[in-house]
């Protein structure tokens, strides 16, 4: 299978070769064999030796198309490029984010200081919809597209988490 790492141009070709027993497996990356020895395996966490180097991997999220990992403290996104999985994805509609387009989400956690728009307001991309405060900094939340505010999902003074939906723009 082919893998794309972050936004690196080079695609890695990697495959599982076979299990060697005793928590060890042989894998092949770009034609080269590597020994992986599993040391710890939790619900979203692995520790293993790859050849002779220790790695700690946290799995943030994982689908058949993409995995978001933290490898040795370093965030790494891995996209899987197998035709088979692409087909599977499309047929099952797993690709996500379909229609998420309407939602204005918060990129930071914080508190709503003030609202600059209300349902029905016409906004242009970049217009301020509301102001959030976090760690003594005020951050304007701007419309991500032209349209009409359909709904404001939060009230003044409310706390919001990262990725919370703040408003719906159509």
């Amino acid at each position, binding site marked *: 299978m082919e893998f794309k790492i972050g936004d*690196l141009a080079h695609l890695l070709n990697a495959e599982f070769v076979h299990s060697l027993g005793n928590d060890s497996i042989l894998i092949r990356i770009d034609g080269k064999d590597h020994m992986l020895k599993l040391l710890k395996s939790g619900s*979203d966490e692995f520790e293993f030796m790859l050849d002779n180097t220790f790695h700690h991997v946290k799995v943030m999220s*994982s689908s058949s198309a993409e995995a978001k990992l933290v490898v040795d403290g370093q*965030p790494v996104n891995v996209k899987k490029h197998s035709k088979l999985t692409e087909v599977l994805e499309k047929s099952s509609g797993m690709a996500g984010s379909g229609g998420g387009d309407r939602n204005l989400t918060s*990129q930071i956690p914080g508190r709503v200081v003030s609202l600059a728009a209300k349902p029905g307001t016409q906004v242009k991309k970049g217009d301020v919809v509301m102001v959030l405060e976090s760690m003594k900094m005020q951050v304007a939340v701007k419309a991500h597209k032209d349209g009409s505010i359909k709904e404001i999902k939060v009230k003044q003074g409310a706390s919001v988490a990262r990725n919370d939906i703040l408003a719906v723009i159509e």
Partner: protein
Amino acid sequence: MKMSKISSILIANRGEIALRVVRACKELGIKSVAIYSDEDVRAVHVKRADEAFHIGPAAPAESYLNMNKIIETAKAAGVDAIHPGYGFLSENENFASLCEKSGIIFIGPTSKAMEITGDKMKCKEVMKRAKVPTVPGSDGIVEDVEKAADIAHRAGYPVLLKSAFGGGGRGIRLAKDEKQLRQEFEMASAESRAAFGKAALFVEKYLVKIRHIEFQLIRDSHGNGRHLFERECSIQRRHQKLIEISPSPVVDQKTRERVGEIAVRAAAAVDYLNAGTAEFLRDDEGNFYFIEINSRLQVEHPVTELVTGLDLVKLQIAIAQGEEIPFNQQDLRMNGCAMECRINAEDPFYDFAPSVGPVPSCNIPYGPGIRVDTYLYPGCTVSGYYDSLVAKLLAWGRNFDEARRRMKNALDEFQIEGINTTIPLYRTIMDEPNFVKGELSTDYLERYRVMDRMREDAKEEAKKKASAAVAAVLLQSELVKKAKAKGAGAAMQQKQPSRWKHVLR
């Protein structure tokens, strides 16, 4: 001031600085009394202090800035003194005055000294009288172009023309020579007259490739003043310090003595008491210009502690008790080099957006030459109500290079789960060639495109981790297969996102 032994201290602060003061109290056998807001009930300063009092809701105005409530608590707890830390009420002359009136020792300057240091214009006047060099230029508004040319000539070109009605970078014009000055003055005056009915311009020398260099001061109630050498704090982002270093790579012993003496004179000019900092700008030609006195213990005080061997908080307490400073200027010796990185809960890849929330686990670095001042512990929470400084990472070495290498190591070891921090930026800076050479300036980040470099480094890191990442993905799918083969759904939990989600961009 008469001697009065302090036996208990209320710490009117939170976070790492509150913990720092608790540690000093414990060393001295002084009872430490913490205060806390609703948000901080499980914070480390509450856990470590001898006593802790709840003082109000999360919002600072209702808790850590609530002067009356804090004084009331101090009285209820029966403390002798209050340590304000930095930020919050530390430079509030009214609070210092309230303490004085309540018979509680305020561990810091007198309210009178703070009144002067807090007023930039008044302070500059006092300094000029004390022959402390300030940025050359007009003393006030200049209405006449001939006078402006005269001042500019004395200050030296280039100069800035600043409108009294401007602000935030607006209304500032640069003049490289007299001809340009006359042109710009006319235009600026016309503009100003049109907008506000009168011309009102300041003339100020334009400083190139500025370094921010400050001198740590202490002064006791007997009038003894000392400087504890300089810290270079040029690496900043939007006027917020990121990295502090002592000694400065451009200050030699002669300069240190000369400017240090000026700093001590500045402190005497305002009858300063206790620990403080005289801030200077240094231009590319090596001139130092006083800008202000910070009348508090500063965030970066441990940098000075590492090169002098002194404990500034314990020294503060001694001075507040009326003791004399127990050493002379010439007793002090600078030992090696120290630097501090301010670890902020901000995402450097996303315009330094604040990052708050629970920290399920963290690995605090240690080892030769490493010191960390932090409120983090596994299971703590970073609150969005207070500032974003979560840790101060310090490295000491015999010289700049050793300190830098140790810092690099420690940054690699520092793992904070659950939030984004400025650690990746510092990892880039430690290896950036201009930093390595000590080529610093307040526009360092832009001048050397350091943010771009950080992004490149992140890409390189991802490349290095590519094999391990791919291996993990293969491993996971193999485990999922196995689990399916066994018919159990347990291993499927591995596909759930975790609380680490904030780490990913």
